[in-house]
């Protein structure tokens, strides 16, 4: 077990900051279906296109999306790698508790059976 500072911490902070906003998370979810223009991304929201553009800029700075041009359209593209790093970051801690609590479920069931068979 290694508890030590990790070089990627700053990048993780930036990614987490970008993910901390529900609109930005929704934009990422939309981009899992394919690349999209600002107008397409803004359509489901009540906020203006400039506001969506600002959110996209934050996502781009975090490395969560890239943007490229196709003809006259500027398309946003989901970049999966930073998301993968974020999920791995938490995954091991999650796995520790998932497995512990699954074992606890089994133990609790056994204790309850025991109590049922030998009441009092």
């Amino acid at each position, binding site marked *: 077990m290694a*508890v030590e*500072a990790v070089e990627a911490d700053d990048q993780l902070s930036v990614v987490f900051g970008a993910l901390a906003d529900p609109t930005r998370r929704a934009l*990422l979810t939309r981009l899992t279906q394919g690349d999209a223009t600002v107008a397409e991304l803004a359509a489901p929201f009540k906020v203006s296109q400039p506001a969506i553009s600002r959110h996209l800029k934050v996502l781009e700075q975090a490395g969560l999306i890239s943007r490229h041009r196709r003809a006259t359209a500027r398309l946003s593209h989901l970049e999966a790698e930073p998301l993968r790093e974020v999920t791995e970051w*938490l995954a091991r*801690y999650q*796995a520790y508790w998932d497995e*512990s*609590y699954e*074992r606890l479920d089994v133990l*609790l069931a056994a204790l309850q059976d025991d109590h049922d068979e030998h009441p009092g």
Partner: protein
Amino acid sequence: MATTQIIAEPGMPQIVITREFDAPRALLFRAYTDPGLLVQWLGPRRLTMSVDHFDVRDGGTWRYIHRGADGTEAAFHGVFHGTPSLDGGIVQTFEFEGAPGHVSLETVTFEEHAGGTLVRTNDVFQSVEDRDAMLQSGMQEGINESMERLDELLARLAPVS
């Protein structure tokens, strides 16, 4: 099946873990405070847990060790603050001996919930860096993860309407 929810907000030196169990809370409390039961569930199966001591009272100390098949060890110790009780829960300090001086304060509560028990663990660290180091370590060495985790994450990132 019940899921373990872990909340670690960016920039906050805190982790909140919640989990529902299909058992009365008195039984959960026993599983947490009886060292003979604790060793049967805390940590992954491939690690052997042994309790050095476990003095369940106000000011009492505890220490336990996780051992891997390859002989690696990870030891932890702490102090109970207030006598652990069903209604008051468990308040204790927690320190990994591999990173001495980085102490967290843990509060575990047992709430009756939907015919079972909701166990809530609140860990407060001395700094965001300490919290992140704990999350990063996962308390264990590597577990292979795949892109499935990405799918799960994106599924959880619910769209806003």
